[in-house]
């Protein structure tokens, strides 16, 4: 256990440079976009010198860049994400959207693991069979598709032409509700985005599991297990699967970050009120404090996901705990 703890501690220490890197990049780039006063002037052409002075001291524009960075970082770490240029605090704007984004991502993650792992195993066990060829070709289509475009196509079919499912938002704001009920309405709104996200990540997971499983099934320890008379199901689902899934865990962790980062495209397509859509809206009107806040929050979520992955990995692979 002690070794597991030091391992985790190391992983957490590793996250600090990642966090600092993101914060520096975010801070610099948003500053490169122009200072907030210039942006405020676009909408409020007449600023009195006193107002201007107030703004300068509010944004600490009279101080050097690095001082402003540390101030900003300090505020962020204490939970103050700043004020949106469109009014209201950034935190108030972002926080409710974290939940909607996670709802979508986690549902899709659960579904894609639930589907991807068995399909990948089946495909590897029946390499080059007709069903394997069907699975691998579908999977390579899946990874070759922009997520949002698949979303658009599904909206075209199921919303625009068939009128079966809603195409935007996460709930109908007022009756009539889809399928007659407030709760079913929420589910109806989830179906298409979850379907799209699941399809795309299932494709990745199937390809990974299949490739790993093929590699593992070639290993001597599988042959040795077979030579010892173990049942084929024991060999596949316990001996081989654990070895095949372990590297996938890392990649699922990394791809969770990737999926989360892919949220802007998907959420825009479905007008899904999450972090991704908020990011696009804020970046479009250059509401930089909001953009900064979302980037940092997404980074934190990705880091938490990575930590979870590391924990899983250490649990599955005893070699990690010791090295």
């Amino acid at each position, binding site marked *: 256990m002690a070794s597991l703890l030091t391992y985790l501690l190391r992983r957490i220490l590793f996250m600090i440079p*990642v966090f600092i890197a993101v914060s520096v990049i975010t801070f610099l780039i948003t500053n*490169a976009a122009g200072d907030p006063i210039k942006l405020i002037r676009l909408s409020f052409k007449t600023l009195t010198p006193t107002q201007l002075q107030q703004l300068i001291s509010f944004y600490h524009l009279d101080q050097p860049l690095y001082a402003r960075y540390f101030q900003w970082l300090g505020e962020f770490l204490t939970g103050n994400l700043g004020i949106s240029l469109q009014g209201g605090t950034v935190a108030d704007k972002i926080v409710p959207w974290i939940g909607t984004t996670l709802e979508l991502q986690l549902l899709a993650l659960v579904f894609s693991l639930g589907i991807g792992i068995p399909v990948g195993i089946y495909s590897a066990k029946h390499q080059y069979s007709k069903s394997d060829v069907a699975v691998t070709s579908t999977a390579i289509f899946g990874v070759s598709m922009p997520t949002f475009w698949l979303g658009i196509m599904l909206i075209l079919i199921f919303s625009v032409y068939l009128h079966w499912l809603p195409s935007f938002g996460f709930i109908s704001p007022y009756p009539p509700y889809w399928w007659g009920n407030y709760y079913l309405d929420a589910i109806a709104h989830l179906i298409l985005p979850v379907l799209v996200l699941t399809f795309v990540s299932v494709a990745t997971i199937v390809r990974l599991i299949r490739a790993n499983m093929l590699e593992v099934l070639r290993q001597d320890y599988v042959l040795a297990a077979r030579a010892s008379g173990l049942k084929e199901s024991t060999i596949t689902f316990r001996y081989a699967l654990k070895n095949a899934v372990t590297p996938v865990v890392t990649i699922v962790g990394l791809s969770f970050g990737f999926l989360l980062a892919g949220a802007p495209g998907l959420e825009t397509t479905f007008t899904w009120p999450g972090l991704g859509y908020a990011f696009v809206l804020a970046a479009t009107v250059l509401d930089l404090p909001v953009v900064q806040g979302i980037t940092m929050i997404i980074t934190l979520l990705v880091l938490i996901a990575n930590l979870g992955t590391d924990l899983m990995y250490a649990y599955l692979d005893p070699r990690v705990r010791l090295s």
Partner: protein
Amino acid sequence: MGFFVFLMVFGFFLAPYPVRDFGCLYQGCTNLPPFTDWAHPLGTENSGIDVYSEILNGTPNDLFVGIGATVISVAIGVLVGAIAGYGRGFSSAILLGFTQVFLTLPVLIIILLFARVFVLLVAGGFGLPLITLILGVFGWPTIALVARGEILRIRELEFVQAARALGAGNRRILFRHIVPNMLSPIIVISTLLIAGNILTEVIISFLGFGDPNTSTWGLLLQEGFAYIRTEWWVSLFPGLAVVFCVLGFNLMGDGLSDALNPRLRE
């Protein structure tokens, strides 16, 4: 694949209408559905842009971003990987840590941020090279890891050991023995990276963070999305172009990795 490379070179000449041509606005041929008028086989969109023509005009641009960014990533990645893999000690440890930090970044969000901010700042017309540069600068860590892994593997091989025993210098060993041997995995992963870069570029322009004056598939998709309820064809066809192009590169990557990695197969 070859088909798309062909389009990349000749796309401009094949396209019946110039880049972002709004001629139809005056001739009344806006909103044409596909397959009704052979002057506009895949239809036109709301402001009269010919979909077929615009897909062809976008092809070289999307391939430019995909391939150009990959070239930049390979250059940085191989260099970093080579130093991290070949050198021992402090510099290689630092580079390896740096690579891992980079791998953990939520890259796509940062790329979007960069694209949004810098495309605004630079003069018109440079949007595409800029996006290429951004994608290239953020795409190298996987290449670096692969390069490092290969170097660690190859430098223990017998012929490299033999060359060292014969007194060959580090640089000679690196460029004569190691670099040629690590080419094949790098080529495979580069092909897959091209596919990924094209997808990212499509997202950037779809979200409107790209250069609004350059034809790309993503830009056309953005216009299609605005009129999704009336003009399905503006969404369908450029998307198919993306899928087939990216699929082509992915299949090439898979095929290359099978071909360069001979194993007993049925």
